[in-house]
């Protein structure tokens, strides 16, 4: 009997084509806007994660020196030398939670080959630094432990620098003059590219292509000789995402204790992820609220049309009751009609929303992601709105006095 009643309601939905279409529009737009906004915001986040995976993962923690304003410095603070190799050693010894510790020192030098000459920052690094930033080699080798111990006169170039100083020739094995010394190029890094969108001409990884790397010891012993052990960057990798909560505050505390002031800055990707997720949530909620408002409007449209069609169909309700329809059967009929109409609207809205997301993705060259959860949520929303807004008219119809309903003109 239930199946027959459902079939009857379905037949009615088909019979009232225009009304069905009108009712659907509100829901279509609501679902479409929810799907579109969710899809675009998820796409943005997926793109950020991709960028991070490209450059050494999400467990990176970087420490940079941040000079304090001289006038306000206390004596103890003035004695601080900024970030040093000793800091890195202290971190390695005293802090757990990091599985990779590397340092980098940057100094500008004149760099010359037969082809070009340029004043450039040269970066003196410990070998772990390459792994830390996710650097890979196109040709040659990276620095060895022996290079480090002997402060070997060698360097590794980013792809762009190799092209700049050696043209189309293979740079490996060639000699590059850096400052007062001649260094042998032992390796060339893979050319790296990352564009936030296809329309974007800025390569977010160009800094890798522009590196001139030497062993840290080479820079300090052969060039600086001052005995200074200042570094420009301490790069740390968390052993796990869970370690983040304890390791980063411990790092800050340790460095403050050693320096007597917070003359450094910590850049922490886990922290950024959390911020991003927080922001993402705010966006998602905002968009969702907008979408839900349009769903609500759609629902009101549904209820309105149902109420209008209900007066139009009052007589029909009377006739149905006269031939023996019980209240719940009328109720079911009206409710099934709304659910079918809105389910249909939900599916259509989904199609429109998906189309919109892909349209925007192509036009504005934005990333877009759609998950089954989103799709279910959108259609579920549409149907529940329908049920909620369909309940009242259905209930009203079910309770109609048949004599009154029959007399209705």
């Amino acid at each position, binding site marked *: 009997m239930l199946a027959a009643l459902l079939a009857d309601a379905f037949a009615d939905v088909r019979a009232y084509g225009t009304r069905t279409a009108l009712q659907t529009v509100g829901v279509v737009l609501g679902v479409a806007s929810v799907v579109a906004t969710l899809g675009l915001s998820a796409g943005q986040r997926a793109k950020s994660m991709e960028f991070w995976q490209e450059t050494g993962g999400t467990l990176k923690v970087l420490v940079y020196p941040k000079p304090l304003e001289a006038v306000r410095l206390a004596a103890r603070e003035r004695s601080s030398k900024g970030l040093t190799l000793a800091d890195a050693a202290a971190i390695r010894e005293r802090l757990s939670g990091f599985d990779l510790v590397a340092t980098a020192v940057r100094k500008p030098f004149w760099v010359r080959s037969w082809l070009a000459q340029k004043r450039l920052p040269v970066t003196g690094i410990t070998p772990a630094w390459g792994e830390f930033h996710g650097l890979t080699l196109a040709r040659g080798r990276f620095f060895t432990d022996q290079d480090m111990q002997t402060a070997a006169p060698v360097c590794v170039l980013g792809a762009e620098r190799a092209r700049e100083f050696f043209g189309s020739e293979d740079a490996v094995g060639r000699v590059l003059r850096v400052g007062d010394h001649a260094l042998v190029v032992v390796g060339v890094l893979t050319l790296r590219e990352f564009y936030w969108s296809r329309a974007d001409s800025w390569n977010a990884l160009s800094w890798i292509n522009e590196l001139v790397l030497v062993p840290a010891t080479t820079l300090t012993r052969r060039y600086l000789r001052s005995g200074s052990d200042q570094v420009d960057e301490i790069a740390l990798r968390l052993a796990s995402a869970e370690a983040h909560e304890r390791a980063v505050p411990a790092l800050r505390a340790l460095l403050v204790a050693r320096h007597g002031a917070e003359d450094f800055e910590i850049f922490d990707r886990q922290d950024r992820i959390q911020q991003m997720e927080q922001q993402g949530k705010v966006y998602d909620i905002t968009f969702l609220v907008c979408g839900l408002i349009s769903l609500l409007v759609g629902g009101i449209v549904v209820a309105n049309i149902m109420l209008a069609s209900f007066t139009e169909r009052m007589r029909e309700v009377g006739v149905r009751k006269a031939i*023996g329809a019980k209240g719940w059967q009328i109720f079911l009929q009206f409710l099934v009609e709304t659910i079918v109409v809105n389910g249909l609207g939900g599916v259509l809205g989904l199609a429109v929303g998906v189309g919109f997301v892909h349209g925007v993705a192509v036009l504005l060259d934005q990333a877009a992601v759609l998950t089954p959860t989103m799709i279910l949520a959108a259609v579920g929303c549409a149907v529940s709105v329908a049920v909620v807004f369909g309940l009242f008219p259905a209930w009203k119809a079910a309770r109609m006095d048949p004599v009154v309903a029959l007399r209705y003109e």
Partner: protein
Amino acid sequence: MVARKPLVELSGIWKIYDGGVEVQALRGVDLRIYPGEYVAIMGPSGSGKSTLMHILGLLDSPTRGSYLLAGEEVSKLSPARLATLRNRFIGFVFQAFNLLPRASVLRNVELPLLYAGVPGRERRERAMAMLARVGLADHAKHLPAQLSGGQRQRAAIARALVTEPSVLLADEPTGNLDQTTGAEIMGLFDELSSQGQTVVLVTHDPQVAAHARRLVRLVDGRIAEDTGVA
């Protein structure tokens, strides 16, 4: 032909509407209708004949009095129970036909069986058989709007009869039809009556009432004349 037990037994039926001003639509109606009877209820407008038909048809409940339908007291039943009895015992034919405009003739005729819970195949067969009986077998797939007035009323009669009701209740069944078509429809009622169907007509038209074998005249909510069981 007349059985001993009445099909319908109204005793002391009052119907009072109280919408600010009290209106006594029925004031103590006693009426017995036996199986197989062909009754016409007549009366001027405002005499209470529509109210009586609604109560007879279980669309409305009396304010006072007792109504035994096939021996069961039905004056105090719930709306759902009334719907079930209506479906089983009563077949309605209206002046305005009251077919569902968007449903085919067949679907219209099937509908009472649907509410009775009759399974699909049987429903279809019984509806088709009933359409054949009123001469509309070829119009099963049509929409009501595609039929003439007479055909629509035939479809409505098929719908009323498809559940094999004890009483066929017709309210001005020829009111929206021309003379000739009206006569045809009345011929159909006569034929049904001769086959043993209990028929109750509610009308103000003496020509229509003349078809019945028993006349009940209603004036001011009371039975003024009853030609009695034939």
